């Protein structure tokens, strides 16, 4: 059964810079994300994947095109309204974890709930719950400086899902991790997508992540050049090149 998308981007154009230095970072990108899928956005450096992630995350505004998040159009929204959309529907995971060095793991997660207005014991309990979910129940009081890279990224994952967003956007989540931790984080993201029916989009150029994806979108020079999807029922980390199949089918 096809689920209705939680994020829809249509014909996104983004120009960066001014005057002679102006660059067309995105040239009409359209995509949609549905719950329960881990989608990878792959492409070489400078292809526009982080710009696209920023736009999908309502951090950057597109020069042209439209975006709908959980049914809400982002068109005409000011910075505060976009921030509200982010805190209600989107969780972020960053390449450098972006944890608060002065807060412990529990507090780092709680702050994502605090900005949403969830305070006190229920927020603390929820933060603890998600940290246990990512396997850090024993590191609640540890500060980022005392956590390994993998543990820090798992705290970041916990922070991203604490407020139960429908969309999780991850920027190079495994780039700063060794192989073992990279696999652990990707497995976690895949589990979040499947078990919690969230839509997870990860920007990456790490081939180790391919096996966890339900879908891979390839971007080059600001355009989507390919999309691959794991066939339904296939559990092995094998991706079928749907683009090729589609081209074949259409002659």
């Amino acid at each position, binding site marked *: 059964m096809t689920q209705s998308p939680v994020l829809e981007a249509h014909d996104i154009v983004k120009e960066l810079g001014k005057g002679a230095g102006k660059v067309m970072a995105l040239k009409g990108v359209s995509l949609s994300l549905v719950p329960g899928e881990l989608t990878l956005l792959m492409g070489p450096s400078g292809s526009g994947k982080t710009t696209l992630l920023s736009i999908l995350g309502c951090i950057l505004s597109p020069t042209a095109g439209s975006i709908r998040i959980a049914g809400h159009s982002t068109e005409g929204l000011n910075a*505060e309204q976009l921030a*509200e959309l*982010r805190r209600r529907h989107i969780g972020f995971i*960053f390449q450098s974890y972006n944890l608060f060095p*002065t807060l412990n793991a529990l507090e780092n997660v709680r702050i994502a709930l605090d900005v949403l207005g969830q305070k006190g014991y229920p927020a603390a309990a929820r933060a603890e719950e998600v940290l246990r979910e990512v396997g850090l129940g024993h590191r609640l009081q540890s500060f980022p400086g005392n956590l390994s890279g993998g543990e820090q990224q798992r705290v970041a994952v916990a922070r991203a899902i604490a407020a139960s967003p429908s969309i999780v956007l991850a*920027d190079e989540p495994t780039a700063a991790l060794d192989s073992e931790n990279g696999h652990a984080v990707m497995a976690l993201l895949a589990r979040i997508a499947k078990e919690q029916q969230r839509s997870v989009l990860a920007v990456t150029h790490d081939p180790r992540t391919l096996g966890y994806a339900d879908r891979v979108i390839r971007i080059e020079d600001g355009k989507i050049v390919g999309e691959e999807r794991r066939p339904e029922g296939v559990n092995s980390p094998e991706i079928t090149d749907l683009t090729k199949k589609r081209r074949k089918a259409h002659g």
Partner: protein
Amino acid sequence: MILTLAIRNLLHDRIRLAVTLVGILFSIVLVAVQLGLYLGSSRMITDMIERSNSDLWITAFGAKSFEEGGILLTPRERHQALATPGVKAVIPMISAFAEWRKPSGGSTRVALVGIDKEDGGLEPWNMIQGTWEDVRAPDAIAVDRTYLKDLGIEGVGSTAQIAAGRVRVRALTEGIRSFTQSPYVFTTIGRARNLVNFDGEKGDKSTFLLVQLEPGADVVSVQQALRERLDGAEVLTKAEFRDRSLTQWLFKTGAGIALIGGALLGILVGTVIVAQTLYSSTKDHINEFATLRALGSSSGYIHKVILAQAGLSAVLGYILGMAISFGVLLLSRDSPLPLVMTPGLAFWLFALTLFMCAISAVSAIIKVTKIDPATVFSR
């Protein structure tokens, strides 16, 4: 979490926190000392007027202050005042500078206050040795303990000379200071007139006339009636005479302006130091604020974190600053110009500290307002 984050951000760099607190502390102490001196000066200048049991003061035209009463009033003015409806009593008093000759040689200037306590207009307060009855004895005077050294005397029993007459200290007061640094010397009005030769040929002259009104009499109406009757004199309410004295000593001499200027300088220095450290702290934590913004926090949430940092710095700086200010206040107790700290001043200093820190936070808030949350992806 706002408070937690603010506390952690402050404690994260303890050297910078120390610099911030020193800045606030310096500012508080400077402002407290300057305003404490201002209040102390004001109290010294107006104490005699405030403590008088009178509704109106009749002074020579153009009298500048309690110590500078100008030309003398005659019994004629007193009788005219007494004949005015609504006036219950008119009490004469002498206030004049006079030369004090020390027993061991040398001289200094004193502010001689002559009044009869029995008239109920004004009396020396805080008498720690002797009584008014002692002051009524021949040649008797009362002086303040703090000025014994300046006057070159030991205490009760010491003798000296004021202008042409010999005097003996019969009573001591505590804490009656003079802004002019000419110690107050209390005696009866008759003796004061004799000492400074105000008797002259006509006798019964006085520097001021303290007017007490009948119960229910309207101060403004009686003041107006007195003004119409007394051609060469001024009729002032206590508040008017107090303000005139303050203007004379604090503003026309420039002393008050210097004190207020010092206080403003303290506020300015404190604000700049706190602003600089808060800005620098915000700059250091800018990536965290950008992350907060990316996580969807409102700009108000981030402003609250910065304001909480400013508020915490203010509270800590205030506590330390006031502790030092109270130390300075204690040390100044026996000085010629003791500091005054009132609950009102302490409250306003706290409000001022909070305001100063809030103003200081503006530059930091402007900085975070310009945060581009997209920077979280560029690290």
